[in-house]
């Protein structure tokens, strides 16, 4: 049941305290609309938002100073953005498939998403190497510094997401994801889409210098 319909019915997102305790196994026990894993993922994402908020507010402040010098963002970064977007779409197809009880499709789309994710990271590395080849290093200008730092921090988080995808893919192969209970996929998808949104935010920020 979607969170919104729960809200409409109950008037609050927080459920009444549970009647049956499941011993802290982290699953969606009792009468909860939201699993513990889901809530925990949102908490993690909040922290990540604040990290990027800190970095980007630094960017905005320094952007306003007179010594700012622009660099040209490598064109491949546009392609990387499309690849990351495609990986999110693939992950959505996987979610669709799990709700329709199509385990083969679930595994297929998850694998595609992961490969596209790796493709994004590879493309980012290419972008860095292109910059270096053009003589634009970490310390060349503040804009370049932020380019490397923002893309680097994002890439590290995406790498973490890839590891998570791998874990969920393994669960898919072990037939642990069902239409009723596929919390790990839900949570991994939430994280992944979020990283996509963070990327678009960083990308726009770096472009609109």
């Amino acid at each position, binding site marked *: 049941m979607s969170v919104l319909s729960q809200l409409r019915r109950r008037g609050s997102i927080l459920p009444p305290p549970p009647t049956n305790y499941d011993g802290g196994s982290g699953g969606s026990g009792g009468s909860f609309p939201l699993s513990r894993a889901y809530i925990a993922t949102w908490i993690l994402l909040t922290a990540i938002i604040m990290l990027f908020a800190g970095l980007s507010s630094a960017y905005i402040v320094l952007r306003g100073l007179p010594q700012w010098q622009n660099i040209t963002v490598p064109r491949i970064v546009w392609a990387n953005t499309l690849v990351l977007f495609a990986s999110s779409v693939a992950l959505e197809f996987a979610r669709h498939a799990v709700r329709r009880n199509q385990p083969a499709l679930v595994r297929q789309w998850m694998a595609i998403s992961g490969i596209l994710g790796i493709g994004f990271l590879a493309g980012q590395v290419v972008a860095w190497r292109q910059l270096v080849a053009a003589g634009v290093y970490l310390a060349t200008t*503040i804009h370049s510094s932020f380019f490397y730092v923002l893309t680097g921090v994002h890439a590290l988080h995406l790498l973490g997401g890839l590891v998570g995808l791998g874990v969920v893919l393994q669960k898919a192969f072990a037939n642990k994801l069902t239409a009723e209970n596929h919390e790990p996929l839900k949570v991994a998808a939430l994280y992944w889409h979020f990283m996509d949104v963070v990327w678009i935010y960083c990308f726009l920020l770096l472009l609109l210098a």
Partner: protein
Amino acid sequence: MTDTHGHQHEGEHDHPQLGFWRKYVFSTDHKVIGIQYLITAMAMAVIGGTLSLLMRLQLGWPHGSFPFLAKLMPKAFDNLGHMDPGFYLSLVTMHGTIMVFFLFTAVLTGGFGNFLIPLQIGARDMAFPFLNALSYWVFLCSCVVIFSALLVEGGAPLGGWTAYAPLSALPLIDPHQGTGMTLWITAIALFTASGLMGGLNYITTILTMRTKGLSMMRLPLTQWSLLITAVLGLLAFPVLLAAAILLVFDRVGGTSFFIPGGIIMGGKLIEHTGGHPLLWQHLFWFFGHPEVYIVILPAMGIASDILSTFCRKPIFSYKMMVYAMAAISGLSFIVWGHHMFVSGMSPFLGSVFTITTLLIAVPSAVKTFNWLGTVWGARIQFTSAGLFSIGFISLFVSGGLSGIFLGTSAADIQLQDTYFVVAHFHLVMAIAPLFAAYAGLYYWFPKMFGRFMNETAGKIHFWASFVGVYCVFFPMHILGIGGQMRRIYDPLNYNFLQPQQILNEFISMSAFFLAAAQILFLVNFFVSIWSGKRVTENNPWKATTLEWETPCPTGHGNFGPELPVVHRWAFDYSPPDAKEDFLPQTAPAVPAARQH
């Protein structure tokens, strides 16, 4: 009617026998983890406290010679036994860093948070027990790393716990700012990771694992404060991490986030350009101000609950206490500029921050009135825990009021960077929380270890500490009014400070007295673990909250085969319609009018 004089439950949660290491060291049981945090934080307190005694030695007798110390630490003293000024500043830096993060945040949030949350909400453990254990071990790593900063060749960093750039961004500007500073940053990053794991657990657990009948507005204030603090930490610490990441790149990557052009080092212009030192301050204080509330809020929650218990009276205006804590934490994100009134920040922003800062005084005042309202008409039991919770109120008032001077930007011009600030933040962020932590330790010691701490020693500890803290920190207001700057190795270097040097001597002597009282506490704590008077009942303090339904000490799984069911709020002390002078939260609801 609930049996509050319960004996040891045999219905303890069935559990396979664990070896010593899995049970007491690498445990995922929140109670063990909580105690691990407490003891580690106490060790850090001893280190941080020792550093402050060395500082006070120097400030009390700035031209003094200390041959004994010079023999112990030859690199920190010259051959006449005088302390090295760089060493003095590294003491200042490490004292602040260790106390703020590795003592106060750790003991209140990590120690009491872990121990109490599942117990007070009627759960068997946290939502993510393994992650919980991991958070402790990462914390322990961060303690080791910060300690190692004291031991490296160039010495510990000397830029203050606030690590302002560019001093912190230029490793070659002083040996202290080299490896020592790098270790500092690493320790803070590890601490942030640990805090995030903890916060994740706390929020998820409190929101989703409360037992039947325990609505949010029936939570003890300790739980509210821990929940709100966890949210604060989530929002604030990552910004510190962002600043630390940028600082690391400035230090080793040649970037210039915080370093403007035009800096001369070693007589030559350095190559950095384009950054802004104030950016560090904005990022740091955006984190730093919520951080001080991360320290004081759990202290307020714990002190409130314990006060209520030993006043045998409900906390005054529970709802407003909750709203006030929420208001304080929300406002805490828009006041950070009051640390920067004379920093070169736009004076217009200075006006904005004065308004928001004085606004945040209002919910704090509300809480103070409520504490007074709790004591009014009470029937106070003068246990050690009760005394410390009362002392907390006096100290918070003293520390909070001096904040009004500093929040008023015009008055702050003269007081900024003086000992007036040092007095303010010690009273409100160190001493008041310390008293709340002591209250908590005396109070929950029976629940943790199945024994009492020695009450006589506890009372001596209280009276000596209460007098001691005022003797140490109250005169500092006067020092600051007189103009004594912060972080000054030798105040006698200035003529205008010489007449008040006697205050420095008085403070230093009081500090040694105060330290002795804390040693009494430490001895009491550790000796009592092994040979304190045994507790023979579940609820020796006759308290209402759920942890007192469990045996002393609480066993694995916390509650018997059935989890408790809550029927009332946590403050039914001296209820008129009951025989005893309290009704625990599990006491069934009365059909009559009084429902909470």
